[in-house]
């Protein structure tokens, strides 16, 4: 087990290096810092001096890989590749275009993202599983039929619609909660309740249908027939046997997204003005702040890989037959 995890972490490092190379290639090779400078300064009134100044401010005025002018180890460290890419492994992201420290921003914004994403995830998962179990319980009845129809219809609605419609009805029409904004501590509840509710409501759909299929598959198994033959009530069979076993693929399937809850949800945060990492990313994309986008790509990759390792571990926890080698 330990050996396996160590190996996974080493493999994760190799993948992170790959991610790093992709982002480096995208941001520094496909388009050189000169191009980016020209774009940011405005294509018309751009002078070589302005570009040089822009690059010097951000430390983009160095050679990409090898600095012939520097001495010793500095030939490798005093380069864009080292300063902008390698240092990311130490979670040093440098400064954003407005001069703020990106790592500090990420630390201060993560709680707001979590405050939104964690309830949304837990409640959403609970409601999805309950709805799927209900449909499986009443399978091949009208409830099941219309439940599936409802799920397919929900899958076809743009997530933007839920947000816009929810904001309109609950905030603008009925004045139940503020349209957007955020506050620290407990008073955040009134800002968070609507986005969480909308997020949960919008999450019904594809995954609900998948869970229903999982439960129905599980109900066709031999051990369920045995349980019924023993004379157990349908409810006991459902909750003690089917639910427990059906949860294995469901839980192991969602473990991978748990670390990514940190990065928040892009759309919801930006619509509701919640100062989390999602809105940070959207603002960065809008302002074409490449430093932030690069950092968020890296963090997202790290979290995803943590999720993969957690998924493997969770398999062994919920299913004793699985061992990691």
């Amino acid at each position, binding site marked *: 087990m330990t050996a396996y995890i160590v190996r996974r972490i080493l493999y994760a490092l190799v993948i992170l290096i790959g991610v790093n190379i992709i982002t480096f290639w995208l941001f520094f090779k496909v388009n050189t810092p000169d191009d980016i400078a020209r774009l940011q300064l405005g294509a018309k009134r751009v002078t070589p001096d302005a570009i040089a100044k822009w690059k010097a401010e951000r430390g983009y005025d160095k050679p990409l890989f090898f600095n012939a002018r520097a001495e010793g180890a500095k030939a490798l460290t005093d380069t864009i590749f080292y300063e902008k890419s390698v240092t990311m492994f130490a979670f040093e992201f440098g400064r954003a275009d407005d001069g703020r420290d990106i790592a500090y921003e990420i630390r201060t914004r993560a709680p707001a993202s979590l405050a939104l994403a964690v309830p949304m995830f837990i409640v959403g998962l609970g409601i999805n599983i309950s709805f799927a179990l209900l449909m499986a319980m009443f399978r091949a009845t009208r409830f099941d039929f219309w439940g599936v129809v409802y799920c397919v219809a929900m899958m076809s609605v743009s997530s933007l619609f839920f947000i816009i419609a929810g904001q309109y009805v609950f905030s603008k029409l009925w004045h139940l909660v503020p349209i957007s904004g955020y506050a620290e501590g407990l008073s955040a509840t009134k800002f968070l309740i609507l986005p969480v509710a909308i997020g949960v409501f919008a999450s019904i759909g594809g995954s609900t249908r998948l869970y229903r299929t999982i439960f129905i598959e599980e109900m066709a198994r031999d051990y369920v027939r045995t349980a019924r033959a023993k004379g157990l009530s349908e409810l006991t069979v459902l909750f003690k046997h089917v639910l427990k076993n059906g949860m294995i693929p469901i839980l192991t399937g969602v473990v991978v997204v748990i670390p990514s809850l940190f990065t928040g949800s892009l759309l919801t945060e930006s619509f509701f003005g919640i100062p989390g990492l999602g809105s940070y990313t959207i603002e960065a*994309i809008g302002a074409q702040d490449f430093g932030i986008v690069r950092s968020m790509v890296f963090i*997202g990759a790290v979290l995803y890989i943590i999720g993969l390792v957690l998924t493997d571990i969770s398999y062994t926890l919920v299913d004793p037959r699985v061992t990691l080698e």
Partner: protein
Amino acid sequence: MQLTPIVLWSDALLFALIAICIFYARQAARHAHLRAPWARVRRNAAGLASATVLIPFVLIGVLDSVHYRPLLEAKAGSATARYSVEVKSLLDVVAGAALGKMIGKSEKTYSAPLATHAFSKETIDIPGSGGARQVREYPRLVAGGAHLKDPVHDWGRDVGVNALRGVVLGAVVWLALAFVLLAMAQPAPHHRLAASWRAVWAGETETPWRAVLLTLLAICIAGALAVTLGSRYHLLGTDKVGQDVFYLSLKSIRTGLLIGTLTTLVMLPLGVLLGITAGYFRGWVDDLIQYIYTTLNSVPGVLLIAASVLMMQVYIDTHPQLFQTAVERADFRLLALCFILGVTSWTGLCRLLRGEALKLRELEYVQAAQAFGVSRFRIIVRHLLPNVMHLVIISAVMDFSGMVLTEAVLSYVGVGVDPTMTSFGSMINAARLEMSREPMVWWSLAAAFFFMFTLVLAANLFADAVRDAFDPRLVVKRPRLNLIRVKAR
């Protein structure tokens, strides 16, 4: 020449895709084993009805993909013909014929659906006063309801009469279509039309004609209403710069279709090639390919797309000489977006096909082929590829609807299609700012969401039907929607 045809890259690729589909259809028609799953799709009522809905969408998209530049009026003394920089499409011609003056920038600004007056008050000179006396009023629209002499009095009656005409016209067209369809298909024996109708209405035909005809009726009536009402009023209102929202929605269909289909064109070769290679060769090839897709997968999708699109925007801005017209620039951006979406979304298919190839390579017929000394390339092409095709088709149709939805989100984030290009995302994005207006301008949003919902729902249902028909394992697993009827018997 009155016009010069323009073939944008995306048009060319779309037509290439259609050619591929026609080629595949001819192949499928010839071989029984390829025909069988499609016959199952044909027997699926929901699938066939949704295909009926998809056809008009595809037609509109194809019409909108035939581009040309109209001839400018020649200046006196100039010998060479000059063409407008404005690129038009066949859809503009058709819509111009059907909707008349409504298309184009006919109004100044917002107007509600079917309105005769603008949405906001303006200062108007009282006629005859020479500009000395002015009044704040809702001005009459230039095109919408212009045929009415007394809009306040006549409006309700006119709308009602035209709606009725639309319904009647739609029903007539539908009847004609239904007769042609049934005469061609002849669902009842002995070629008797009356028997055919009875069988259809009882739902006893093997192909669910009832579902198709009912869907067709809805489409015909909607289309006829669009013509009778849409040529006299702005059916879905106008947007901020006075463009007809209904017409904009029609133009958005092409963007949605292109995003959904061209992405597949990028994704399929990558996913199929790499997936089968990894599964068949195993060893270091497998390790390498697995590494590549895990790496790509681990970058959050939206961020990777955003980063790539930002970079592409820099490229477009630094190479303005490559693009003659704004449309070409927008088209390049659309293609690049499809490419980026394709590159970021082939991983799922690749993993699926890798697993399937791992299984297939151990089967007897592949082993036998190996023993006979068939080359690896031939084994992949002759034995593996045909046996994973059903997975490829399923994933191609399943991904389509997701791509249409993704486009809207990406355009909202600001990394979608070019802002000058009409798309559902850009419509939503433009209308979003009007949320705070009182009373709210709801029709742009509603139109974009409605069209998107119809397209995506139809695509989802069709994809479901295709999956049920093609995936042999699912036949037993999934209780189908027709279970209720089975129980009732």
